[in-house]
């Protein structure tokens, strides 16, 4: 399976740039496996760049919740950035803004860790 996101460091923060345009039932297990690999390297201050994301289903939302929980257990957080208007409307429908810190762009999400 190809990488669903690329990874680079910005100081103490790890930015994960999603390259898949979907997170749904068909690829969520692989997405979780790749995120677990990042967390296993004790990278807990994470920004997920959702600029490429066109579609996320409840399976994808659940995996984001689980990953955020794991990042917080490690003393960091999983913060979301760059989601399209359509994806943000779905986040609002399920109350994701109460659980996640969601930013318009990656630099703002990175700066929020300072």
């Amino acid at each position, binding site marked *: 399976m190809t990488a669903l996101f690329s990874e680079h460091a910005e100081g103490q923060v790890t930015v994960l740039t999603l390259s898949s345009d979907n997170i749904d039932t*068909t690829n969520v297990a692989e997405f979780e496996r790749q995120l677990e690999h990042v967390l296993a390297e004790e990278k807990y201050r994470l920004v997920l760049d959702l600029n490429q994301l066109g579609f996320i*289903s409840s399976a994808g939302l659940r995996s984001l919740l689980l990953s955020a929980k794991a990042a917080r257990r490690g003393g960091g957080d999983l913060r979301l950035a760059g989601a399209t208007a359509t994806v943000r409307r779905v986040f609002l429908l399920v109350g994701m803004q109460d659980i996640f810190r969601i930013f318009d762009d990656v630099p703002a999400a990175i700066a929020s860790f300072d």
Partner: protein
Amino acid sequence: MDASIRIDGGMETLPALMQFAEQTAATFRLPDDVAYAFQLSIEEICTNLIKYGYGDTGHRPVSIHTNRAAGQLTIKIRDRSTPFDPRTAPAPDLSVPLSERAPGGLGLYLVNSIMDSVDYHSDATGWNTLVMVKRWDER
């Protein structure tokens, strides 16, 4: 315009269903939000039917028929699983730990929220019919 697909199997049928939804959304020239609602409904409803409605045994037929008219998309899904009215799915409480939540609740809540109307009935022949409609301003 109309498009249909019929499946009979387990979760391995989901990629074909998602491809159907994506291709049909493009053929129908649906606005982004409507295409999203369409794909979401197909995935959430069919995942629930296969995982929870049918269980692991026997035939698991699901047939999907879609119609696109001016400013209106209608999705009709028929199945023969244990009857369950998706409109009765409660709103999810994200503060409740994931492990304590009822399976499938988040997805069905999303479908109920994102579609303009959801109708459901089971008939004496054992078929359940779910009809979902999404409308938009098309000028």
